[in-house]
């Protein structure tokens, strides 16, 4: 993050006011440095928030049998994931299901949800992939 001289001066004045008259120059220097660092972190977080949505695409396929959608959605509900879209196709004995899920409401991160879903996939003997939405957006949308 780049700050202009003007901004740095402003932060320094604020700090001097906060610390009062007895502050030594090194104390002021340290306090200013901390402030600027925390601002930089905040800035970075904002930036990342812009780039990355919390949406994930779940693809699952395998031999069709009762209870697949139920098992998958149950696991997602337990992780507090919001299913935003769902589409399914059956071809002969095989089924394919694709979901768009928002995991930003979940208390788990993608890795943990992937682990949860791996358990479900194992039990049902189907394949489940969870991938961040961006990869599809990049490949199929200009």
């Amino acid at each position, binding site marked *: 993050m780049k700050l202009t001289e003007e901004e740095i001066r402003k932060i320094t004045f604020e700090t001097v006011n906060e610390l009062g008259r007895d502050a030594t120059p090194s104390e002021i220097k340290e306090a200013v440095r901390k402030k600027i660092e925390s601002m930089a972190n905040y800035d970075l977080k904002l930036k990342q928030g812009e*780039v990355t949505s919390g949406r994930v695409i779940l693809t699952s396929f395998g031999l069709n049998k009762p209870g697949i959608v139920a098992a998958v959605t149950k696991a997602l509900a337990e992780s507090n994931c919001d299913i935003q*879209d769902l589409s399914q196709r059956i071809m002969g004995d095989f089924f394919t299901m694709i979901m768009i899920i928002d995991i930003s409401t979940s208390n788990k991160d993608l890795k943990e949800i992937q682990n949860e879903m791996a358990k479900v996939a194992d039990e049902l003997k189907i394949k489940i992939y969870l991938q*961040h939405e961006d990869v599809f957006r*990049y*490949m*199929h949308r200009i």
Partner: protein
Amino acid sequence: MQYEFEEILETIRMTEIEHFDIRTVTMGISLRDCYDRNIEVTKQKIYDKIIRFAKNHVKNAKEIESQFGISIANKRISLTPISIPFDSYHSEEFIEIAKILDKVAEEIGIDYIAGYSALVQKGMTNGEKELIKSIPYALSQTKRVCSSVNVASTKAGINMDAVIMMSEIIKLTAELTKDKDSIGCAKLVVFANAVEDNPFVAGAFHGVSEPEVVINVGISGPGVVLDAVREAGRVDFQTLSEVIKKTVFKITRAGELIGRKVAEKNGVPFGIVDISLAPTPAEGDSIADILKAMGLEDVGAPGTTAALAMLNDAVKKAGLMASSSVGGLSGAFIPVSEDMGMIRAVQAKNLSIEKLEAMTSVCSVGLDMIAIPGDTPNETIAGIIADEAAIGVINDKTTAVRIIPAFGKKEGDFVDYGGLLGKAPVMGVRTLSSEKFINRGGRIPAPVRSLTN
């Protein structure tokens, strides 16, 4: 739904079935500030700097892998050509540096670290001479260090003295690593027109015009292109070119996404995506198979060069559309040992060194991972390097030679490295002498093409 059913399945098919992966995410690190008169201090500086930037390189890349469901085959590091910052050192000290690089690579958890290099297309400094002399020892005493030497460029011509020297270095490297099928030569590349931002090891280095640290990405999707070509069936060339372009467009986009995310995670700038089609020894992940799917009976059949030219061109066009950061080598690779289709073609005697040489004039990068008999004379190896360099210099493109004069082996034998380096049948080389030509020495002047100003 926001995405079509087919689109999502296409992506899954590419990553899960067709071996689409990011071939390499390479972190380039400048070592120009690491020199000290005391070699021990230099070693510490190098160690500290690489650790500082790259200690989480592998971990971060793995996280991105699972987040996007696209595997990253290799995580690697490229460095400023070692001869540049450490020009005042002698061979023994360069070998010390190689050892510290090997150690740091092991600690970070990467398989190769590249940049044990020198750029001598016009002439050699004392340090460069010392570094080149140390290459066989450095490669035989380390496991992970890769070396490259640029001996020619369109602007400077071909430094034939360096070419002769490199032929001797290659032979000595083969001998010093004879216990492991001369594996040292698989880590040594001789370049013409080497590029500064190539992410592909063994030829990678972090050029002098590059920033302090950078992430470059090399994509790989021969399997994806192969399936697309097969699916297209009997269509004419324009249509086929379209099919290849559409596929490559998508994998390049994914490559750029992954590169940017890894760079972001490491907190370093993103450099380029190299849109090369790089094969692996896995079945179906082969350039040779693409050429066959295009209609050739086998690689080496008349028409092979044309087919490869078209493939390479389509790859480039699609990549250019897909990313504004295309760089590196960006073309199809045709290493023999790393491509099952190529290995079979050589074994069936359908593919000779001469045909491979012709193919390298229309694709990146050059005569790559080719095993030849161990008793091939130095001058013949120098001749092969000079031919390849001439193709690069005259056509203003990168070419390279990574040739393995397999110590103690003859035509028909095999060298087998396992893993990504694969295995290569020892190919026959013409026994006609190049001695008098090569030993003239000096430099082949730069071509007319160099005078562009």
